């Protein structure tokens, strides 16, 4: 049985066919060409595949593609507005909060989800929220600074 999925991805209607046991991560990358979302572990441990499903942060490797029928998905490709980067993306660049970059899309989506509902998090809240996003390169500090700075930017404060 092939499943026919009609959904909304990054505010655009999308339709695709998939296998019933296929994950959203596999469908995004292999069927829809949205390769910004990364696979680190495929077991829910690393956060590289983070996307928003109806506004909720989830690991795309533990969501079946068939489940997103009628729902809204936001991937890292949909975080910027046209050519204007989201403050989180801008601050990742300014703080050099990435090295190899494989964890970055997951961090950007997860941090955006945090700032969507709390634009003034403490450092502890940022670290706790991002505890499921693993980075083998940066040592996390620059990432945390970038997110705190993005939050300040969104509140219209300079730090």
């Amino acid at each position, binding site marked *: 049985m092939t*499943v026919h999925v009609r959904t909304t991805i990054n505010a655009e209607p999308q339709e695709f066919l998939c296998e*019933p046991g296929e994950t959203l991560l596999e469908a995004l990358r292999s069927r829809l060409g949205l390769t910004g979302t990364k696979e680190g572990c495929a077991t*829910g441990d690393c*956060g590289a595949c983070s996307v928003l499903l109806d506004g*909720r942060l*989830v690991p795309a490797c533990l969501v*079946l593609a068939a489940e997103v029928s009628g729902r809204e998905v936001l991937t890292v490709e949909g975080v910027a507005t046209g050519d204007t980067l989201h403050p989180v993306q801008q601050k990742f660049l300014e703080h050099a909060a990435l090295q190899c970059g494989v964890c970055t899309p997951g961090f950007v989506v997860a941090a955006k989800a945090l700032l969507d509902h709390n634009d003034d998090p403490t450092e502890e809240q940022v670290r706790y929220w991002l*505890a499921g996003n693993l980075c083998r390169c940066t040592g996390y500090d620059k990432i945390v600074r970038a997110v705190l700075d993005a939050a300040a930017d969104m509140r219209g404060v300079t730090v």
Partner: protein
Amino acid sequence: MPQTQAYEAPRTLADAVRLLSTDGHARPLAGGTDLLVQSRATQKLPSTFVDLKRIPELVGIEVGPDGLRLGAATSAAVICEHAEARRLWPGLVEAIGLLGSTQIQGRASVGGNLCNGSPAADTTCSLIVNRARGVIAGAKGERTVEVERFTTGPGRTVLEPGDLLVALVVPRPAARTADAYLRLIPRSEMDIAAAGAAASVTLDERGVCTAARVAIGAVAPTALLVPAAADALIGSRLDDAALRRAADAASAAARPIDDKRGTAVYRKTVVGVLTRRAAGIAAERARARP
């Protein structure tokens, strides 16, 4: 992933029960944080994934005069946002908040945590001390089972083929009653408990404990209700001596195994420490309540 023949998202409980009872290899899917990981690891895929999240009775959280009704497939993130649930059952909601990371919280359900049947499942002890019951629907109709009788061994539950856990119902706590849950994990985040303990205590106006329940996890094939630990608390003012007696009772009841998360001896000791501290936190919370 390898092949599964079908994905179904029934809109009614009756349809879900029918799908599950006509195909023994179909599996219910809530958040998938156990099921999809296990399917991948074992390469054993169910014939059909029966997604429970479009069945109204299975999703949502309600707090009313009788207590809490928790749709079995409700995500941890949704539960933790419910301020009244956090106020009435702080220990239970904290246990739910411990499931994995923010991402896992967006998917993981309490029903899945219980039905997966892990002895280390973080929410089970708190459900037990709060006298939670599981509402089960199956081909033969509906029944309810106390959570302390729900898990029968590692990975085994009272569910029969075709059965679904619909909801968990938790009675409203009595006056001056509160709960707490603590676990010990070898790493500081994202790990499975080496031991866990939950306590619920009720005080009278003078601060004497009139009712208590203690449950321990990850130290036996299933989570255990420990009546001897509760007895050590009842009748006391929950002073240090009473808390220590409860700790000893919990350690005595534990039947842990040696594994990479800790030796049996260590776990027996730690589960006592966790019991003492959890009962202490529950006591402080109960004292702060009208």
